């Protein structure tokens, strides 16, 4: 391969480049200035995510307070007010679903809960601080068979058919998979 002096020169330069890369990676990585410049994207993502979680907690704190006080209707009104400012925020959908579930409006609650999960998959994620897996598992355990049989008896009831579809969607998301 190395047949003349030019080849040997290229080979030597290549070795020098390889040594330089190894040297830079091993030596440079430990220098304080390099550490300052390094971009830890995972850390940045985590900080942004934690900030989002804190923001949601603060934003929806009045709703949570009203729910704790047992004023579910007032909490729904507060959610209406907030949804005008943040129309595509999944957390509002989730809270609305939770309240409607408490009020036993099952098809409506299911629609909002499924919409929340479509907008933000963290609600079915075990590792997320926003996780509501237990709630979904309970909902499916209690309502899937009931809604399925009601939908079968009333094939023209579009709300029931939609609720069944949403429950299947939640069931699929809880089952996991790659998405």
């Amino acid at each position: 391969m190395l047949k003349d002096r030019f080849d040997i020169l290229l080979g030597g330069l290549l070795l020098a480049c390889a040594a330089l890369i190894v040297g830079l990676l091993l030596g440079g990585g430990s220098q304080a200035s390099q550490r300052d410049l390094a971009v830890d994207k995972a850390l940045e993502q985590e900080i942004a995510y934690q900030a989002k979680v804190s923001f949601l907690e603060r934003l929806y704190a009045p709703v949570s307070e009203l729910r704790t006080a047992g004023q579910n209707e007032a909490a729904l009104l507060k959610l209406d007010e907030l949804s005008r400012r943040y129309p595509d925020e999944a957390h509002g959908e989730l809270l609305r679903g939770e309240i409607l579930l408490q009020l036993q409006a099952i098809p409506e609650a299911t629609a909002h809960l499924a919409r929340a999960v479509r907008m933000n998959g963290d609600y079915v994620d075990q590792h997320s601080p926003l996780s509501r897996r237990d709630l979904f598992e309970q909902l499916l355990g209690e309502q899937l068979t009931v809604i399925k049989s009601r939908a079968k008896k009333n094939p023209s009831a579009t709300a029931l058919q939609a609720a069944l579809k949403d429950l299947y969607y939640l069931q699929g998301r809880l089952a996991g998979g790659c998405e």
Partner: protein
Amino acid sequence: MRLALRDPHTWLVILAGGLLGLSGVWLMVLGNPQNSGICVSCFLENSAGALGLHDNARMQYLRPELIGFVLGSTLAAALFREFSSRGGSAPLPRLLSGVFLIVGCSVFIGCPIKLFLRLAAGDLTTLTGLAGLAGGVWLGLKGLAVGVHLGSPVKQRGGSGFWTPLLFLVLLVFLLARPGFVIFSERGSAAEAAPVLIALLVGLILGAIAQRTRFCITGSLRDLFIMGTRAQLFWGFLAFVLIAFAASWATGNFKPGFYGQPGAHLDLLWSFLGMLLVGSVSVLIGGCPFRQLIKAGEGDADAGLVVVGMLVGAGLVQSWQIAGTAAGVSVYGKVAVVAGLAFFLLNLLLFRERSAS
């Protein structure tokens, strides 16, 4: 002619298929996402995210299995003196084929390997995908039969076949050293993973045995259509499906049904069309996404370009919301699949050798 049962290669192909089926379920049991023990397209989407090619924070992880497939193939090819730099036929159409392979897979939610892993776990929504894949392979074969071909790769000087293995060697360094610019999801499906060293080792073994046997899902279907049951690859494919089914059943992961299946949707028409795209394009470029990784590992620069295209496609399907989700397929996904089918048909027209009459 009958299946050559006395030929050791037949048994090696069957072993390759069996190992793939077993590994697909075992890696899931060890931590990979449900029904996604092995999925080339999902893993490419994860890896593209890890490299910053998309910003879906739930899909970012440098999957060791992919690295293993390519480097295992390289090692086997080197060991058996089969590594050879080759390529040079229709580079850009191959690159775009890689992009559209991932479009089809992502709309279906899974590559052909995952299709059968999902089916083996009882996911009946895959049946239309299976019909689409078989239809696509048939369509591709029809194209080949009337004289369509992208050209055969020729031996190349300049060692162009080294670049894909080198790229994956760099990815291996990234996986082990974890520099700050590579992202590893803390939540979502990309956070579900088998232990790194086990995943890497399984990838290396599968890559090596797939290089020796030329195992390929769409290739198996193609050979079945051409040669019937005497095709060796078909028996490997059958071993893959049967072992995956047995392993799913033995591990309690066999849950037959249409509804509530993991990583599946009920847009059945689009599952069909997505896999139709994958099957047809795979025949045109000589192998499914898994086979392209293996060929790239043994020095095929054309397959290397497909792999680069698949990596680009993996970034795009997430960034442009093309990928299907449990909620269904977006309008962008549908448009991308139709564009992919148009791309395939256009290639049939442009690459057809017509005899002068």
